[in-house]
């Protein structure tokens, strides 16, 4: 009982901060999502409008288009990061010359602020001065212009996200791989299992919790991507890269439509929670024994 009380006392500051900066803003946004509030409109008051924001949201073509491109972005980015992160983690498990330097360089994007990443990629992909369009033109005769081509802009945002966040996946998977006991692998090799069988039947099930945790983090981050994309493409061309975070930003700040922006935020949070929960259920949740 004594240790329980001490535990709660030690947890109290964290819980208080979590409540003040996590729970209270969420409750405020949830409350605001049922109101109309544009502080710079003719009527700046907060007016209760029931489910009107959500009614508008399900018919809003811009929001639905934004949801579609966001799902595509999240899928391509997270899957690419997971595959590439696993390959790099396996590579770092082996010894090779310059491993320490390569690992440090490989981790550098992780410590950069997203707005800086967006700026760097904007410089690198600007047609007249950027190195990437220049090299693509010189080597392959390709014309990369993310200001004109929707597909190119989408692809570059995915590549930028992969470049920025793959090191996180690599680091978490290295931690998972290092902690694996060698016995099951030795036994599998003695039993004649090939590399593919060892991966599917031993490695993957044993690192599944780490994979799920990593995907959770990346899924949540990718669904709320704003600053990198806003800096790189501004959501364009057209609405090709207007992901949900960018859409909310444009709805809330330039248009000061706080009520409707809050409703979209609540739905994004809902989608994030549901996606993470489905992932958890499909990979880790214990099944009912009938």
């Amino acid at each position, binding site marked *: 009982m004594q240790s329980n009380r001490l535990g709660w006392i030690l947890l109290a500051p964290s819980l208080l901060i979590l409540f003040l900066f996590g729970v209270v803003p969420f409750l405020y946004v949830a409350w605001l999502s049922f109101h109309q509030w544009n502080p710079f409109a003719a009527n700046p008051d907060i007016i209760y409008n029931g*489910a009107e924001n*959500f*009614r508008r949201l*399900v*018919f809003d073509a811009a929001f639905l288009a934004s949801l579609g491109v966001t799902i595509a972005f999240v899928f391509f980015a997270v899957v690419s990061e997971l595959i590439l992160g696993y390959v790099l983690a396996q590579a770092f498990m082996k010894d090779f010359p310059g491993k320490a330097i390569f690992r440090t360089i490989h981790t550098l994007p992780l410590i950069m602020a997203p707005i800086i990443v967006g700026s760097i990629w904007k410089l690198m992909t600007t047609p007249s001065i950027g190195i990437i369009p220049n090299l693509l033109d010189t080597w392959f005769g390709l014309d990369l212009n993310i200001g004109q081509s929707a597909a190119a802009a989408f692809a570059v945002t995915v590549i930028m996200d992969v470049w920025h966040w793959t090191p996180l996946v690599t680091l978490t998977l290295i931690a998972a791989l290092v902690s694996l006991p060698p016995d099951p692998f030795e036994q599998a090799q003695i039993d004649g299992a090939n590399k593919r069988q060892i991966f599917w039947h031993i490695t993957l099930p044993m690192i599944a919790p780490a994979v799920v945790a990593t995907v959770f983090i990346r899924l949540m981050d990718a669904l709320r991507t704003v600053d990198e994309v806003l800096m790189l493409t501004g959501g364009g061309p057209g609405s090709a890269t207007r992901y949900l975070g960018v859409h909310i930003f444009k709805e809330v700040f330039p248009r000061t439509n706080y009520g409707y922006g809050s409703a979209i935020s609540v*739905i994004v949070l*809902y989608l994030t*929670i*549901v996606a993470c*929960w489905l992932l958890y*259920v499909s990979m880790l*949740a*214990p*099944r*009912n*024994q*009938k």
Partner: protein
Amino acid sequence: MADQKDLETPIDILEPDEDTGPAPGAAGFLPIETNWFDRIFISVVIWVALSLFWLRFIEPAGLSLNFAHVIAVILGIFIVWKG
């Protein structure tokens, strides 16, 4: 016998912690093991999904959103009770 008395009682490492959260109930119709909190969570998720679906496809035909709420509450009670 004297040697046996000197042995320490082994620590039962499989003994569960005291605070492990809500205990899972009997197996319900849901395909996964759930406790009451999981079932409330599933009910809320279904409530929101049903409300959005209703707003988009059913309400334009004239049926009020309140019907969706009533259906979601009944479904929620059923899931919490039998899930």
